[in-house]
């Protein structure tokens, strides 16, 4: 069973016919070639597929593609301001070694985008609580906490965006 879906992803409008069984993650990856949204567990546990849905972080594997009809989605491909430039959160992950294999990173960055809007000066405890919704098997999380704290400072403008040494 197919269904027509009109969706705005990273500011661009798309219209696709999707199988009703396919998830939003399937639509992004398979139909729109936006493979930055990673799929780990496909049942909502790992957080790798987190995207912004009408501005709020959600699991792209726990929504049907058909449900995105008429809505706006932002993926990791849409966070950087332009061209080769990185978003301050991405810069902070680079500068603070907040990733190793990178599989979980897009999901964490999408969550962090929303989290830092609500918590512009988060405590380590708040950052860790947010990260509890994301599985990372490489880093041990410490450098991710550092990266998000650094990103918060950069976004608050108290210091320039971190540069990579």
């Amino acid at each position: 069973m197919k269904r027509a879906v009109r969706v705005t992803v990273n500011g661009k409008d798309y219209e696709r016919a999707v199988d009703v069984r396919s998830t939003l993650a399937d639509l992004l990856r398979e139909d729109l070639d936006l493979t930055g949204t990673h799929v780990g567990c496909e049942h909502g546990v790992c957080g790798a597929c987190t995207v912004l849905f009408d501005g709020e972080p959600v699991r792209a594997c726990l929504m049907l593609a058909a449900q995105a009809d008429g809505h706006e989605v932002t993926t990791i491909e849409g966070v950087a301001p332009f061209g080769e430039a990185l978003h301050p959160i991405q810069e902070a992950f680079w500068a603070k070694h907040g990733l190793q294999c990178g599989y979980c990173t897009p999901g964490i960055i999408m969550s962090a985008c929303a989290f830092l809007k609500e918590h512009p000066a988060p405590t380590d405890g708040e950052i860790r609580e947010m990260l509890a919704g994301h599985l990372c098997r490489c880093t041990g999380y410490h450098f991710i906490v550092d990266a998000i704290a650094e990103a918060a400072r950069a976004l608050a403008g108290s210091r320039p965006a971190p540069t990579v040494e």
Partner: protein
Amino acid sequence: MKPAPFEYVAASSAADAVETLRRYGDEAKVLAGGQSLIPMLALRLARPSVLVDINGCVDLDGLTESGGTLTVGALARQSGLERWARTRSPLFAEALGWVAHAPIRNRGTVVGSLVHADPASELPALLLCLDGAVVARRKGGERVIPADKVYLAPLATSLESDELATAARFTLPPEGAGWGFAEVARRHGDFALVGCAAVLALDGSGAVSHARLGFFGVGGTPVRSGPGEAALAGQQPTPARLAEAAKAAAAALSPDGDLHASAGYRKTVAGTLAERVLTAALGRCRRAG
């Protein structure tokens, strides 16, 4: 794409959803936030032939507080209740902080969680402790199911297959009441191994005028503790009395053991948490009069 094939119906109103449920009966499953249903479809633990998506039913949205009752529409997300709770109900705010993670709460609905009826989830225990009810509508009629008649077994409620849970009602604690909430889980956001919630209110003499004590994760359904509440009603809430009530409550539980925790461990933890939440609730009470 992992679920087994199904037919997808996007309902445009509650009446439309109810009509669709009447047509398909127990072959259909209601899709609200999908945060429990879609994993079950992906793991093929559920294989409904029709999904009735109620996300387009704007008449099911909304959260209203009136005359001491909070009514939560079937489309109200857990994050919406969380925002309301920040200024209106620290008990709900605390409990919702334990429900999965923010991205799940952004989609997951309050009513969906209530009628999914996972015995380890937080909100059903609050429905019991706050003398709540689920409003169920079917073609041609509506009924209100009190909380103590909702839960039958793990993932099973008294809702009929052609009924749509359109809203949930919670009776907010009386003026001056105190609350407590605690949970033990393996990791933050995991399902509870054991959880406990309490509401206490005192009369002018300092005796307990209102006591609610509820558990989750301790059996097939959430449990409201008759023995625990009876040990408190009309009594002076001394530390010894609270401990006795907690002990009586835990003794009456018959939790299951599983991979994560034995039955004995759950019972012990339930007693400990009950004493803690009762103590916390008492500390937050303001005496009447």
